[in-house]
């Protein structure tokens, strides 16, 4: 006997307030055998976690914050009954809504913070040897429109131009070996919708030394507070090369990046948790000299 949770939507992605429709599919069901009621639960939580990578010193500083359940919806999808055919589907429908006193957050997998939504089923068949193991819980992706937007903030993009010159570089220690350069560019906004791309452009107006690579780095900053202590750690989500080699002066090179699903979410301040994002633009010269320009960005849904 096989027992499996299935969702209608193959993307398994739902917005807040939507109904998650699916069914519990039973195959090779033993004819005439009784089953107890089928109950389902959608559970969402936010928790701090110790990543494999952070074992060691970080482990100790990491504040012990208990997970917060932000969503728990349960329902009985089927009453007690008897299997009458070998293949049977029990449909269900659960609405995505927050627990009282909590609000919905988006699914996110970070290094130290994780926000997950899961549908679990409990289904008991007790007769004889035909004991069903509980079906594997199924993860869903939850989107929460409007999330990330702070009150008073405009959705409309505000272009963020930048110029990098030796004088604007905040690292005077290596000033001696700095090449002459002038780099211009802009980010098309300060805030980005998650299902649109990150965009902008960069131009090497001038550079006396050849460029080896220009890279765009997406950084997340995860913070966890516990009482007076706090923890804040930036980690890389992904890094994309936008220029490979000594590009032509004056060429408008696009900065383009898709926000990876699951590893990004709207900029989040929630109770003791904080998830923020930044872009690092780094220009690496052939001689090994590297310039990095940092841009905080807001991610919104």
């Amino acid at each position, binding site marked *: 006997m096989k027992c499996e949770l299935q969702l209608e*939507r*193959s*993307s398994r992605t739902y917005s807040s307030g939507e109904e998650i429709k699916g069914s519990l599919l039973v195959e090779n069901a033993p004819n005439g055998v009784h089953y107890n009621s089928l109950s389902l639960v959608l559970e969402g939580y936010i928790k701090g976690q110790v990543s494999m990578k952070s074992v060691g010193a970080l482990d100790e500083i990491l504040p012990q914050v208990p997970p917060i359940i932000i969503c728990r919806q349960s329902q009985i999808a089927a009453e007690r009954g008897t299997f009458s055919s070998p293949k049977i589907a029990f449909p269900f429908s659960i609405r995505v809504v927050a627990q009282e006193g909590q609000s919905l957050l988006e699914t996110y*997998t970070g290094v130290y913070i994780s926000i997950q939504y899961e549908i679990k089923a409990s289904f008991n068949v007790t007769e004889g040897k035909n004991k069903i193991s509980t079906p594997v819980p199924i993860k869903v992706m939850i989107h929460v429109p409007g999330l990330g937007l702070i009150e008073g903030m405009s959705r409309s993009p505000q272009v963020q131009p930048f110029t990098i010159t030796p004088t604007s570089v905040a690292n005077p220690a290596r000033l001696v070996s700095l090449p002459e350069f002038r780099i211009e560019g802009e980010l098309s906004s300060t805030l980005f919708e998650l299902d649109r791309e990150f965009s902008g452009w960069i131009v090497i107006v001038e550079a006396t030394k050849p*460029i080896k690579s*220009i890279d765009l780095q997406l950084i997340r900053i995860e913070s966890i507070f516990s009482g007076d202590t706090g923890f804040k750690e930036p980690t890389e989500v*992904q*890094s*994309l*090369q*936008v*220029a*490979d*080699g*000594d*590009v*032509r002066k004056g*060429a*408008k*090179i*696009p900065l*383009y*990046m*898709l926000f*990876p*699903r699951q*590893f990004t979410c709207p900029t989040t301040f929630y109770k003791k948790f904080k998830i923020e994002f930044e872009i690092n633009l780094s220009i690496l010269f052939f001689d090994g000299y590297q310039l990095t320009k940092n841009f905080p960005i807001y991610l919104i849904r």
Partner: protein
Amino acid sequence: MDITSWALRKRNYALETSKAQIKLSAASSHPLLGGSAKAIVSDMSDPLNFLRKEKKRVVVEEYAPLPKDDPVEYWNSLSSITSKKFASTEAFKIYSDADDDPKPVPQTFSRLELLEKDNKKKGNEISYLSHKEFLAHINLLTKEMEQAWNQNDRVKTLKLAIQSTKMLRDVQTQTYYPAVFMSITEMLDHFGYLVYTRLIAIAFEGKKDVVNFDSNEVNEQSKETALNWLLKISCIRELQPRLYVEMSLIKNYKFLWDDEHSKVLVRISQQIRGIGSPVMACYAGMYLAKQVISLGIGDKSFLIILLEDLCQCLIGILPEHYELCTPALSWIFYCTALSSSKDELFKLIERLQGVIEYRGDILRIIIEEYPTEYILPNVNYFLDLISGLKNASDRMEISGALAKAYLNSSIDENSMKIINRLWIEISENGKWNIKVYLKASMNFLQLFFKKFGIQQIDILLKDILSHLREDKMKKDWTSHVSEIMNVLISNARDLSMLISLEQFLPLLDEVTPQKKTELCNKIIDTFAREEVKVAISNPLMIHALFTITRVVHDSLDGAESNPDLIARVSNLICKFVRNLHFGNNLEQHLTVLTEARSSFIQFDEVTETLVNSVLDISMKAHKLVSGKHNFKTHAFLKACVSYAHITIPSIDDNMKQFKLFILASQVALVNNLIGEAESLIKTAIARIPDLAEDDELPQVEDCLHTLIGQLVLLPDNPGSSSGFFLPAHGLINALTSLNKRFERLKLRLFISILWYLSSQTQLKLPLKIFRVDSNDKLMSGNANFKEEQLTMMSTVIEELLNFVTECGQMKTIDDAGFEVLLKFYMVLQKVYVCLDESQVSILLKRIYDICLGLRGEAKVKMLRVV
């Protein structure tokens, strides 16, 4: 045998012949009537036609235009040309991923990132691959990828695709880049195909042949899958692998939307700006343009932007790097040209104006890739552009391209003027860069071949030659000259006209000796293949052919080790000799043959052909004067025969010598050169011991019979003091002194001699050569002659009678011996009588009995008939 006095039966050959003749009447119908060969027989079943078909020129047109009607064909030919041009057998450097066993990867985190880190680690190993090894490697990768795909291992499939694009990034030897690009994009295409067909299967429930669909016709699952692939590749760290893999999956977007492709294409074309190497950027652009074509997108405005970007990059780069970019540029311009309007072309040129000033060659590519209907009507515009260019090479290249544009259009007076102007452009600038000048003139040569006469070609060649001579530096342009020669040879409709051009041979002298031999071989080969019936008579042509043939001939000096080559070349020379034709000017023909004899001394076959030719013209002379030679033609004939007599001994092969002596003597006799004929016959007879020595005598026995037949007509000198039948005496002596193993052969020839002797004192011979008096006329009533004839007869018969006696003691006899008996019997019976008839009868009876005893009734029945 004691018969001592033989006599001959009187023959009346003429009467015998006339009585025997069958009456013929005109036939109104006959078996071969009905339909000409063409109507009945297809080309295939007519062997002669078939032969001619096969011999048709199969010249690889190295300079032929590429097939531009179909993008796929054009791509394929670009691909093969590019691979050939830029990939030598020399090994090139490439980073390798030697050990790439898939490692267990944690589920949650980006597996790709991890894979990339793996690759980075190994990136330091450099391996050297030859192009062949590289192709094998790519093949292996493709197979591995296909295997992974079939096992549903999508991560590995993608990983392998990415890995291939990394090789593109890691080619350390730039000249290999185009060839590597071609192979890798082929693998990527395959990857794209695998993904796309899977998506189609998901979207249309297993159907595979859906071609046209809207994004709203496909199900959510296929959309989701298509998007997932795109998201997966969007996080490939390195720029080029990310771009290439995305381009290979460009069709995935068809599942997401219908009209936003151009947004993606514009973005990718702009991202290509991030590729610092102009060569790599051009090829990335080339792949993008190809993917656009396969998507069937009409709007190609972004390609224009792409081109602008790329061209900007090309301004300052090294010429050898630019050269690497040209196939990519050609392709992108070609794609832009598809479904482009004339206005768009001019807008494009305007936008590229700034670049063209520095890289005029881009204008050349534009002219080559855009339809000539856009170019030629506005040719003045292009002429203005050319005159605006500072670089002489660019001016020449573009002029050459414009000339090429005229290849497929009709030429009027105005275009003549323009072509002239273009040529002047090239001619005047040639001194600045002779290689470019030569390249551009190839276009003109092709145009001139197609549109103008051979004389105009000569004018071009003259100009080329004067440029070459003015070039004091003698830079390395010989390979270009040989390319020009190749163009000439491949394009010429009439090769003989071409080589007769005044400038042809001098130009040929400008290439390296090795190339020269190669080209001469090619010319002669082409000549031979054409199955030339064209008479070779023009003195210039003959001189040219001589020069060319001699180059080939001399190149074989000491090449004994290659009999195939020698056979081929000597064959070609023979063909050339045979095709010489001077109409009635036979003296000139003889002069040329004399020259040929001194030029081509190496090969027996050639010498043989020369002798055959000289005999052939002798007979032509005979025909011309209808056998009535005058003083002049007589002298000519003497010269011909003496040519033959002198030349034949230089043939190595004794047998060939012998046969040619016989043939020459025949020709001499027909032409009333009796002394010469006799002398040739004597020379031939003198060869008999040598032939016997070489055991070649049986092979020439036929010719010896012919020789005896020839003696029938050869007159003796009535006033001779040294007697008559001198050649026959010589022959008999030669045969008698032969080794015993030639006994049968000797006897057979003796029987022929008996036939010959029997004819010599008849009133009238059965044969007559016009204006040649044979012995029937000369020796009529000459008692000495008759006496000598009978003496000789007796000698010969004596020999044969000895044989009969021998046979009488034998129990069995060989076939040849038996045949001699039969023939001897019959010649006696038919022709000879004895003063005492009964003695002959007794003799015949005796031979008959011996024959009967040896072989039985059935084998001798024919002897009884008479």
